[in-house]
């Protein structure tokens, strides 16, 4: 699949943004974010909203006809993309209600409606990231995406990058990073483990073959000619193929920049308490996740490729 920059930026930014919002609100509901006051919590949630909004705006760059984007709310009952659009837009009035409650009452547990707004915002943020993953997981045409591992990875990586961001915010605001740092370490390890399971799972081609595509199951099949003299939409969208050596190299980058380096930086932060470690962890993790998302597309093989001579998807 063609790795479109707008979609890569969208999924990484909205995952981290909604992850930050969900994690901050969850900790706040459980009795307060350790090392962060009420103002700090507001800043963390606002930061998450800005990041998620930037991601959602980037996603509209992927549309070829954005003037009809408002229609994307129409097929909630069947389309995961429509569900994502609905949840992401419903999130905004709810989070504004939460901000209003914090403005007037000053604490999440001051009155019932602020508390309910916080719970609803947390659920909508998680639902948005889950539906983003399901857009890909619902496509049976791409065996590398058609798995429960995909939404699981989107949720895990979203909340892990959110935790690293929250640690960064706590560290910069001068609070104690002990508790959030440990939480971030746990989530980064879990996220890395989830991604390793995914890479292991897509290792073997498991989809349909060129033989069933043509109905010629008794002999070898190879493409003689595609009947076209120039690349088409199908080549540009589905025919993208990176060299295997590059894919291996980039997987190493994902493990290193996305998980091992942030892990080391977080451990450094826990040992020394210096905020610079947290900033480096955030930069490394977001960079690593951009590469991870690029690979998510580059390693996906659509069944259209069978008709262009690929033996198996």
């Amino acid at each position: 699949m063609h790795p479109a920059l707008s979609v890569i930026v969208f999924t990484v930014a909205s995952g981290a943004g909604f992850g930050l919002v969900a994690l901050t609100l969850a900790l706040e509901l459980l009795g307060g974010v350790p090392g962060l006051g009420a103002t700090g919590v507001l800043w963390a949630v606002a930061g998450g909203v800005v990041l998620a909004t930037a991601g959602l705006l980037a996603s509209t760059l992927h549309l070829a006809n954005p003037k009809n984007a408002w229609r994307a709310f129409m097929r909630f009952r069947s389309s995961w993309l429509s569900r994502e659009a609905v949840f992401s837009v419903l999130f905004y009035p709810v989070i504004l209600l939460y901000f209003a409650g914090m403005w007037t009452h000053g604490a999440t547990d001051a009155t019932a409606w602020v508390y309910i707004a916080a719970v609803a915002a947390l659920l909508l943020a998680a639902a948005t990231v889950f539906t983003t993953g399901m857009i890909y997981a619902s496509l049976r045409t791409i065996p590398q995406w058609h798995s429960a591992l995909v939404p699981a990875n989107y949720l895990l990586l979203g909340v892990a990058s959110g935790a690293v961001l929250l640690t960064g915010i706590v560290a910069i605001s001068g609070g104690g990073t002990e508790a959030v740092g440990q939480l971030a370490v746990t989530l980064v390890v879990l996220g890395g483990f989830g991604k390793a399971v995914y890479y292991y799972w897509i290792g073997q081609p498991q989809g349909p073959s060129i033989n069933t595509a043509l109905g010629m199951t008794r002999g070898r099949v190879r493409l003689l000619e595609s009947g076209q003299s120039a690349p088409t939409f199908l080549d540009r969208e589905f025919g993208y193929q990176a060299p295997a050596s590059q894919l291996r190299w980039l997987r190493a980058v994902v493990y290193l920049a996305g998980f091992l380096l942030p892990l080391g930086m977080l451990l450094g932060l826990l040992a020394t308490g210096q905020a610079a470690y947290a900033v480096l962890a955030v930069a490394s993790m977001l960079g690593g996740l951009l590469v991870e998302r690029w690979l998510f597309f580059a390693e996906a093989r659509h069944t259209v490729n069978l008709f262009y001579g690929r033996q198996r998807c």
Partner: protein
Amino acid sequence: MKLGLVIDMDTCVGCQACVVACKQWNTSGTLGPLTDYTPYGESPGGVAFNRVRSYEVDVFPHSKTVNMPMSCMHCETAECVTVCPTGASYKREEDGIVLVDQDKCMGCNLCAWACPYGARELDEAEGTMKKCTLCVDRIYDELLPEADRQPACVLTCPTGARHFGDFDDPESGVSRLVRERGGQQSLPEMGYNPVNRYLPPRNRPHADQHRGSAPEGLAERLKGWLGLSVNR
């Protein structure tokens, strides 16, 4: 009704006439235009609803060239329709034809991703998704003579490899062809249940191959030359 095509892979010669006829009819049809990009440039390309690809099956001397024309299969399980967030993609109740409402499409490409056959192509100039309409603007046109109320690709095929009809009627031409010749679906295991069927090549013995004899040795050839050139 369940309208669709039967394509005979035994008689298709891969001449691309159906590709041209489709483009000619549909570029001014309901989902048209079928935009061309840089038509007079170095690599002219553009939108097409129908593409013919050629394959070699098995290995010489048992090999055979097979041509596979592909357009929308008008699947019964049309996931291109269910993934569409705007409701632009729809499958008609009355005849099963899958169409795209050009006024509603936002060009997100998700339906093209959901189609296993590559039947949908984005018109990058118009920003909307385009696909085969089974010539819906032709098969119901009562101003045309009855024999002409068929898709352009079927009418133009010089070898008669394409057939159009109703698969719900067990006695229709297409239903009979599928029954008699063992019509197959493409990628049946994926479960999209495509309506279009492909008739596999007939099982016929290969033509005899002439096997030449090995050339004679140098001494034999020299003797023969001597016999011709020396006069007694």
